[in-house]
């Protein structure tokens, strides 16, 4: 390779000086987006989806991704027959799939392959009870002597790579295949770098709705490609294919309420006022006013926020208009598709559902439309906790209904029988009471960790105890484990769970759980235990005091354990213990407030004063008086001036305001001067720099928030020369 001349070094340095100005670098970034220099085409701004095998830009040639492999199973030959065994290279993934060591050669049995994601796994019942089990029992009950087997290829977290899996699955020589997928079909925003110029124009013309439309278009294209590639391949091979269109827990599931993103000048303030008025009107029973105000909210936010849509849904439900209530809930479900500011529960989106309806039949694929199925089964009512354990994972009843309908389709496709699904529900396998209890308890935890309302959480806790009292011991161990400062798996209570818990409990509680204060969840658990005659409140209070009591130690209110209790999901993104791989990494390492109130919780004692050390500032100039108000347990304890420079305050709150156990402190920010269109400029600047965009107004920022025992003397920071281990101390 030819050496680049030494002389060119000075040229490069000179160019660097020009480029390195703020405008110079920005010009270079924008120029790159035009492809005049470099090639930004099809390059994701942040490429994290490869972490879990989600790749959204593969060639549509129908080729198998791995010709000697199906999922984690690799092809083997023995005595001229082909079978598959689990690959040790994929050991880390085994837990996501069925516990199936070997897939035998295709014999005389009719082979039905079930492909899908966690819903298809029977998440929260798996491995004790799965969709595949339910399906197989139904099919066998109707087979009239024909042997049928169901091969379970469902994988938790399966996303768009269902395409490759479905094509690879043909190596198993199936007689029919079911694809039960769609809740993990996501296309993230920020977009590919090549699309940023289009986003720039669309955002300025249409506002935040442009981002939603962009992502919906991407998703539509992806799903269309999947259906085409898979459908065509299956049609050519003559293998019957059934697509199950997923449904969502429209009745119970609530995405957390957040502020509207950047809106044109003046609109954000109007939106907030409308929201407050609409909530008051609804609480007063005035649905007409509430709905009118909510309609105006939705008009302003262009259906990119759930708040107004939920009010409209609730008003419709109150007025008995369930079709409208359903429609608004679906719009609310769809409204988060673009929002990368927080983790969103997996779900199926309308755009993906419609592609399946429209496209699958073009390749002779059959459709099982779960939304229509559940509507029929529930006689028009919205699907809720009766059929769902959470956002999309089903109860045993939901699984039985869905698999009954799937079985009905498959039996027809295999020309074995024509029987209505309603007659098949009773033929499905059922989990034991113990398994039901465990699934319900796990559902309570899962719902709580996705910020669901108390009544849902409590309802699952109560259901768990009704199903089987054995769950009470697991619950008390869980309460203990969550309240310890010791890492979860090192606690004695975790050991007790590992010894006494079923594989189901161990799988979820000891692998996927995060320790957090869990205020609402633990309250619900204790409430349910109390109703069952088991008193555990005192134990929890005492443990909380020992482990996290402010009287004994300084507490960082910004750590995940405490921050998560505020139920403000945008605010905790920077301290998540495990990064959401669908979202770009946070670029800031301090707390940002996306609402006018920042809520925190700590463990205090009655009559024991506390001292807060708070370092904070505003992000935008203030529209109103630049003052921050602090409220402890709903008592206004004071107001301080704040500006856009970091300032540190010591705030000593007298003991009479405190109570034993959990105490609330709210930081109330002044209303900012909302940036309006400047907010869109900032979003685009972030995108061109390859950073996670800030779609929402920041009300304030907190760098430090520590609470300590107010009776302790204030320890001044050490003089540097007094620090025991300081270097250079003479």
């Amino acid at each position: 390779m030819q050496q680049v001349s030494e002389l060119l070094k000075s040229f490069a340095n000179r160019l660097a000086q020009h480029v390195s100005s703020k405008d110079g670098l920005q010009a270079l970034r924008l120029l790159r987006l035009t492809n005049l220099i470099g090639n930004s085409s099809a390059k994701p701004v942040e490429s994290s989806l490869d972490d879990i095998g989600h790749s959204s830009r593969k060639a549509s040639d129908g080729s198998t991704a791995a010709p000697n492999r199906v999922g984690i199973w690799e092809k083997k030959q023995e005595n001229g027959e082909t079978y598959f065994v689990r690959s040790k290279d994929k050991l880390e993934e085994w837990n996501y799939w069925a516990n199936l060591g070997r897939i035998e050669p295709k014999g005389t049995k009719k082979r039905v392959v079930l492909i899908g994601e966690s819903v298809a796994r029977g998440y929260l019942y798996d491995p004790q009870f799965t969709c595949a089990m339910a399906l197989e029992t139904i099919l066998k009950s109707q087979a009239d002597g024909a042997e049928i087997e169901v091969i379970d290829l469902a994988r938790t977290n399966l996303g768009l790579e269902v395409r490759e899996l479905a094509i690879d699955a043909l190596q198993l020589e199936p007689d029919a295949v079911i694809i039960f997928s769609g809740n993990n079909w996501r296309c993230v925003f920020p977009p590919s770098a090549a699309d940023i110029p289009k986003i720039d124009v669309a955002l300025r013309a249409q506002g935040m709705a442009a981002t939603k439309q962009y992502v919906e278009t991407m998703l539509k294209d992806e799903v269309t490609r999947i259906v085409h590639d898979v459908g065509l391949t299956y049609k050519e091979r003559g293998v019957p294919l059934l697509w199950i269109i997923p449904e969502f827990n429209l009745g119970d599931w609530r995405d957390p309420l957040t502020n509207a993103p950047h809106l044109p000048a003046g609109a954000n303030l109007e939106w907030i006022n409308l929201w407050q008025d609409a909530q008051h009107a609804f609480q007063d029973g005035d649905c007409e006013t509430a709905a009118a105000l909510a309609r105006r909210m939705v008009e302003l936010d262009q259906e990119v926020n759930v708040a107004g849509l939920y009010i409209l849904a609730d008003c419709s439900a109150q007025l008995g208009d369930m079709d409208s209530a359903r429609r608004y809930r679906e719009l609310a479900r769809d409204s988060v598709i673009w929002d990368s500011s927080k983790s969103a529960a997996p779900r199926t989106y309308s755009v993906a559902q419609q592609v399946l309806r429209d496209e699958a039949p073009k390749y002779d694929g059959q459709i099982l439309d779960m939304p229509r199925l559940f509507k029929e089964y529930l006689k028009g009512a919205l699907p809720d906790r009766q059929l769902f354990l959470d956002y999309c994972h089903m109860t045993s009843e939901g699984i039985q209904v869905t698999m009954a309908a799937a079985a009905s389709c498959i039996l027809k496709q295999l020309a074995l029988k024509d029987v209505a699904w309603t007659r098949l529900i009773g033929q499905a396998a059922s989990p034991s009471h113990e398994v039901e209890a465990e699934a319900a308890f796990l559902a309570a935890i899962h719902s709580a960790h996705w910020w669901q309302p108390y009544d849902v959480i409590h309802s699952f806790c109560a259901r768990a105890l009704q199903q089987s009292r054995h769950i009470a011991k697991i619950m008390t161990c869980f309460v203990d484990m969550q309240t310890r400062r010791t890492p979860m798996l090192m606690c004695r209570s975790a050991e007790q769970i590992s010894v006494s818990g079923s594989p189901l409990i161990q799988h979820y509680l000891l692998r996927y759980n995060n320790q957090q204060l869990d205020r609402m969840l633990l309250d619900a658990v204790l409430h349910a235990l109390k109703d069952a005659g088991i008193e555990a409140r005192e134990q929890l209070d005492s443990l909380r005091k020992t482990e996290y009591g402010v009287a004994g130690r300084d507490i960082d209110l910004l750590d995940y354990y405490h921050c998560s209790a505020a139920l403000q999901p945008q605010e905790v993104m920077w301290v998540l213990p495990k990064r959401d791989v669908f979202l770009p990494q946070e670029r800031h390492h301090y707390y940002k407030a996306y609402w006018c109130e920042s809520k925190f919780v700590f463990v205090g004692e009655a009559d024991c004063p506390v001292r807060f050390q708070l370092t904070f500032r505003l992000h935008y100039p203030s529209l109103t008086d630049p003052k921050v108000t602090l409220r402890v347990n709903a008592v206004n304890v004071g107001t301080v001036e704040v500006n856009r420079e970091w300032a540190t305050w010591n705030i000593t709150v007298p003991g009479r305001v405190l109570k034993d156990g959990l105490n609330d402190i709210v930081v109330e920010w002044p209303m900012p001067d909302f940036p309006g269109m400047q907010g869109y400029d900032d979003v685009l600047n972030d995108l061109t720099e390859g950073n996670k965009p800030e779609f929402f107004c920041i009300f304030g920022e907190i760098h430090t928030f520590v609470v300590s025992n107010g009776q302790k003397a204030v320890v001044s920071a050490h003089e540097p020369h007094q620090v025991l281990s300081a270097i250079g101390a003479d």
Partner: protein
Amino acid sequence: MPTQKNSNGSSQPIAKFERLAKRPHLNIVGISAGYHDSACCLLQDGVLVAAVQEERFTRVKNDKSFPRKAFRYCLEQAGLTMADIDCIAYYEDPYMKLGRQIWMGMIPDLPSERREGILDRIVKSQPEQIIRRLFGFNGPIEFVDHHLSHAASSFFYSGFDEAAILTVDGVGDWPTTSYGWGKGSHIERFEQVDFPDSLGFFYSAITGYLGFEVNEGEYKVMGLAPYGEPVYADQIRNLIEVSSDGQYRLNMKYFAFLSEDSMFTQELSTLLGEPPREPESELRQFHMDVARSVQAVLEEVLLAKVRYLHSKVPSENLCMAGGVALNVVANGRCLREGPFKRLFVQPAAGDAGGSVGAAAMAHARITGKPPYRKKLDHVYLGPENTSEDAYNILSTSSAKFQDFRGKEEELIRYTVDRLIEGKVVGWSHGRMEFGPRSLGARSILADPRRPEMRDRINALVKMRESFRPFAPAVLESKAHEHFDLDHASPFMLETCQVISPIDLSAITHIDGSARVQTVTHETNPRFARLLEEFNRRTGCPILLNTSFNMRGEPIVCTTVDAIMCFVRSQIDVLVVEDFAMERAGIPALWDLQATEKPTGGEAVGHLVYTLL
């Protein structure tokens, strides 16, 4: 004053609000990030009060991401808040680096992926934007170019009033080697060698050729060298053309890093007559000879450059820094055979130490004075764990452990008993060391008199190559009786011959040398007492001391890290703060906790140096 109306309408105060004035000290945070071993430090009125690598928090080895957790630690350690930070110093000149990146992109026939990668880096957020966004800092940022940061990290902590300064590494912004001098608060450089000519890359290329990880395996090559003969030295001299002044040039025919994800080309294999070694494959005499040869050539070049430097800066004192300065064997030869009488090497000589140098330079620029005068005598600058936390963790589990709170002498006797029995002890106490070496705060300890100890710890505990030697920690007062050493060596940065009447095969390298750490009460009292007790019982004031980590992992930081490393390895006994436990006391479920993988952080590549 905020008030609340009481029942009869009169007001009374509720909370007391006190705005804290900014702390009176000059608080400077130093940051290094982007290549490998990102780190953060804090200088308060020129006093270094905290320093730590980000990898210790994220548990990602050589983590190169911006040190967000290390930053918070530094503030907490000093009781500061964001409002107290006067300046952030960054260890690189991003604009100089930008020039180098642009130049790299101008190479003809560069693969398009490479060019795209370079352009990606150029258009990404620059360090200033990252610092402001990540930390929320609006104050002044001082950029200190990379080699100046290295130079400052060494000179300002050497205790020398004046010295010659040599910095040598892979690359920073443009320079890869710099020659200068320091006096008072002033550092001046008069010559440099620029990228792509780099002694660091020269050594890293052979490291990669020998099947070790670039950025990480260089000191393995150093350790392997004594097993070989310099039979390939002539061939290896073809890789580098050395002139009589401070300059040298790499023969780019043998180096591929400008255009490929590899350090070396096929030509190197042709030159040496064998293909590159597959990682983890058997090491043969050929590989040992190549290691010896590259070590010999490196030493030659360094010695020549040290002599050159002395010709320009005829001081008695030499300061060294930069990744190549971690080659303690070469340093030792430079001191023995070179013209300088005294040598100081920054213990965190690599990029982590650049954070300290940057902060020190910022201090000098702002105040006109050097940061401090006293020679660095320890590097216990990282976080400490409390006995209370350790007790809380252990007592919440079903682990069986012994509690020695308030009974340090008993703890020490217990530990010495275990060591004499031939047990391997994981030892975690006090503030963590800053830099790549464990110096008795986060160490694995063993009886150095037992010959089998080296193989045992290599194979079962650290799971690393069998040729890797272990280093000794020795009471400073006794060091001269066992090592050819007449001065303090607190950082394991020099090698010397073992002259002990005791058979110390576990810590004696094949060439009779050892890389010694001398220990005193003043810097690490508990560790010193442990050595004293071991000496009292055995007549040997030395312990085998290696870093408390397993292969591929950062050194442990917290009590939980120490426990998890203990669980995963074959360490026999864990002594963490005032508690001890043995393997039989490990609860079964801890194995599951021990398999948790780190999240976050940015790992470095191991095929090629991080250039961008």
